[in-house]
């Protein structure tokens, strides 16, 4: 059980980091940030004493309520649900994915995510631990996350073929 909890939290943390890094990357090419370079906008930000990019970054980075954290949680939930959907297909439980099966997948995956990751915000404890990863650990866990996603998509493909 502890291993499953650790594994799911590793996935959740990697999704969070990936989303936030993509956000930072998108800052470099986001054409809408040009609005902040207009002279009258700059003067306004100086008067308010804020850095516009940093203000947006804060909304994404927050571990408790940040947008990246919500997106990471959603992706973990969705990935787990697709895993269950694939397993149903592999074992020929259904031909067409109708509402009851979709509902069953959503509830099963939601329950697992709640129990191992979301309950009482237990993921924050893991996040604090994972922030101290060495470079080698970061690389290992990034590959583990990628491999997990590929495995889910392969299982989904296998489910379609059976």
């Amino acid at each position, binding site marked *: 059980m502890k291993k499953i909890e650790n594994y799911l939290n590793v996935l959740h943390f990697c999704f969070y980091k990936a989303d936030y890094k993509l956000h930072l990357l998108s800052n470099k090419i986001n054409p809408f940030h040009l609005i902040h370079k207009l002279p009258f906008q700059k003067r306004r930000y100086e008067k308010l004493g804020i850095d516009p990019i940093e203000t*947006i970054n804060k*909304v994404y980075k927050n571990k408790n309520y940040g947008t990246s954290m919500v997106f990471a949680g959603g992706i973990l939930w969705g990935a787990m649900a697709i895993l269950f959907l694939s397993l149903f297909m592999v074992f020929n439980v259904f031909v067409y994915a109708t509402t009851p099966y979709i509902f069953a997948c959503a509830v099963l995956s939601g329950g697992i995510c709640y129990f191992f990751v979301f309950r009482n915000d237990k993921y924050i404890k893991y996040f604090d631990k994972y922030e101290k990863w060495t470079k080698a650990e970061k690389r290992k866990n990034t590959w583990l996350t990628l491999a997990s996603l590929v495995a889910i998509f392969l299982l989904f493909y296998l489910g379609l073929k059976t």
Partner: protein
Amino acid sequence: MCPNGCSEGEKTKDIYAEGAVVQNRFGASQYKDGKWKVIERTPMTGNSSDGVRINGFFGGGSSSFGQQESGSQAQGGGGSDNAKLALDIGGSIYGALQTTVRPGDQWLGNNGKYYNNSWGGNQYTGSRSGAFKAASNYKWAGRATVGLSALIGAAETVNGYQKDGGQFGYNAQSAAFGTTGTLIGGWAGAKAGASLGLGVGAWFGPPGLIIGPIVGTVIGGFGGGYYGGQIGNGAVNLYHGR
């Protein structure tokens, strides 16, 4: 009345039996139950005799994602599209509400003002823990909408695969690329909207710095998701020459 160019047999109803349906040479009339009847032109691009209807790039019919529909399956496709759209909107709104109630190191009091996390509140502002609880509920709803959007997209792909006769054909591709486009478009649209919203919100004082990006994220996320889905389907339609 028989249109111009009818044969003598058609005019005297000798050729066609009662109840027969014949598409005539003018394209807009048919002979049915012994009477000439003007039928409306329908935007069919598929074979109408198979009862198959294909929606165009910009939608039409019950599905907004340009999927090929057939029989009762068409109803299901439209339903799940609506569900995805509702989830997109719901996700944006819940995300926005969560950020509204607890943006970073502050929390929103009952009096509509923001307070630092280190202060617990009073009878006028309500309690800090109440605000945290509300934000937590919105956080859950935000996660659920992202996860369910992905799940419904996968389910649509499964159904499309079955409709294509066990191949990754037009319907399966349309569902897969439409969902991917919706998720990526929504993500990118939210970022663009947040930036624009902050720019505009800055002119409405400190509350605008919070409300502006939120409104921008909702509008940008919804618009980006919608057009992302359209682009995904458009690419599939283009590939299939539809």
